[in-house]
């Protein structure tokens, strides 16, 4: 979270790499305080939770101004429905950031990668900043990159499970191979898991349940924010041996191949 290390998505510069979902809070005022006190800059809101009429309980009224709002397409079971939801969000709320969430399985809530690609192609073509939520698959991520996605959002584990980075190996591959910000979404249950995702090189982490059902959501949001920051710093500072990657230069054996002067 240093000024020199911003994350740029959709032309916006983001300092806090912890993103927060707004569902599931027991008190919307507490949600607002959690966003404010943790310095969260990007939040997701499900269009289906937004009341079309002005009511005292309208979720959007509890999101602080200057927050980057990302509509999620929760409830969409195919690309057409997700596209419709994104268009409604843009027309009615002026929101251009969309988290594509196409789920046609109510038991495991796993995203439908194929429909997500179709939806991304259409919405990116219409100028949306598209953040697709996916099951981490390299081919799919490549297609999304070609389709104009602004990031990819692989699941850490099943939504609401709190099981952390069950998909770690596959997310690592995306981090290495895809030239888009990788935002780890879903299944992150505790701040240490968020830190782990960031240490491994994720660009941001999104959580919802872990914060919203905490005994003290405000402190938990802060803890996540700090963990994400710590993980990011660790990623940038760590030695390459630990990272398990081959070094591009050969400081130990390179001399054997040098031509004598």
């Amino acid at each position: 979270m240093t000024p020199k290390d911003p994350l740029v998505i959709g032309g916006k510069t983001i300092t806090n790499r912890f993103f927060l979902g707004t569902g599931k809070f027991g008190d919307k005022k507490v949600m607002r305080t959690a966003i404010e006190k943790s310095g969260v800059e990007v939040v997701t809101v499900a269009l289906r939770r937004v009341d079309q009429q002005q009511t005292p309980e309208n979720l959007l009224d509890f999101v602080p101004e200057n927050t980057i709002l990302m509509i999620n397409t929760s409830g969409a079971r195919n690309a057409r429905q997700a596209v419709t939801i994104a268009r409604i969000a843009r027309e009615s709320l002026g929101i251009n950031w969309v988290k594509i969430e196409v789920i046609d399985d109510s038991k495991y809530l796993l995203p439908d990668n194929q429909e997500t690609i179709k939806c991304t192609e259409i919405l990116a073509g219409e100028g949306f900043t598209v953040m697709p939520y996916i099951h981490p698959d390299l081919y799919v991520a490549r297609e999304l990159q070609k389709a104009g996605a602004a990031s990819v959002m692989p699941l850490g584990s099943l939504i609401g499970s709190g099981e952390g980075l069950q998909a770690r190996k596959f997310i690592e591959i995306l981090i290495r191979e895809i030239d888009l910000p990788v935002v780890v979404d879903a299944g992150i249950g505790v701040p240490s898991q968020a830190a782990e995702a960031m240490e491994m090189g994720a660009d941001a982490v999104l959580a919802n349940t872990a914060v919203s059902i905490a005994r003290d959501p405000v402190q938990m949001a802060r803890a996540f924010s700090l963990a994400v920051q710590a993980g990011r710093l660790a990623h940038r500072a760590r030695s390459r041996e630990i990272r398990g990657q081959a070094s591009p230069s050969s400081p130990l054996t390179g001399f054997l191949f040098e031509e004598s002067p």
Partner: protein
Amino acid sequence: MISLPEITAVLKNDDPAFLEQLARRARRLTRMHFGNTISLYAPLYLSNYCENFCTYCGFNCGLDIHRSRLTPAGMEKEMACIARKGIRNLLLLTGESPRHSPPSYLKEAVILAGKYFSGIGVEIYPLQTEEYKILHAAGVDSVTVYQETYDRKRYAHYHPAGRKRDYDYRYQTPQRAAEAGIPRLTLGVLFGLGKPAADLHALYRHLEDLMKRYPGVEYALSVPRIIPLPDAPDRYHILSDRNLAKVIALTRILFPSVGINLSTREPAAIRDRMIHLGVTRISAESKTMVGGYYRKTEEDAQFYIKDQRSVGEILRMLKSQGLDPVFTDWRRIGSA
């Protein structure tokens, strides 16, 4: 899949430590999957004309009650009353009378409801797939249908005549609704008609089968307990409060992402506790008679509600328990 003897063992086990353990697990799973929220809805009875003889029902065609159905103007009055309370999820109900409440009448009600509500469900007599398609296109996003009991013999006993006598046609109703593209389905039994363990087991099997065939549908279960009519000749398998708690907790543990509804037929003291054991959706300030909201009458109800609190009182109760009331959890986006 849990076996019938296992369900029976759970319902028979009254060890307080066991029950507490079950409840804690259920609460954790509920919060993980649904957060600290409870969705609210209200029922709207359109018509109490009925051609069925369900011996346990207050709309049974053999009963001498005042029969009526709402006109479009009456519907709007009722809808406006409910919407003024803040409710955005509406459940439309009718008795089974293709003459007085045909699909075209229901469609009219659904279109009117679209002016006031973001979520529109129907709890009506079973329809054909094509009829569900028409209602879905008009704005219906959920269908509720109870098998009442999965015990065929008892089903025949309680439904001696009328179209509802056809067990299999009713059993296949959720399937027809899913085929028609209805995105949310609610199933249930009326606890008391059959043996609770057997009915619950059959309900779980029905649900599992549907979840495999139609994985994209959002499912919910309702857990109504029978309220015997005055002078009812039948003896029911009454589900105790303790066993209702077990049914709710067990359902949550076996089906973590499935919604569980609890209506105002349960008293406030029960509802206020069950929302921590797995319930995710409750009705508020319900009227179960035709025109009940604007006429403010209690006469000729399908059943008498036990939790009479206002929406405001329900909200205060939820907030005092750390739960956020959700009014809007659906938006109609056309039949894309």
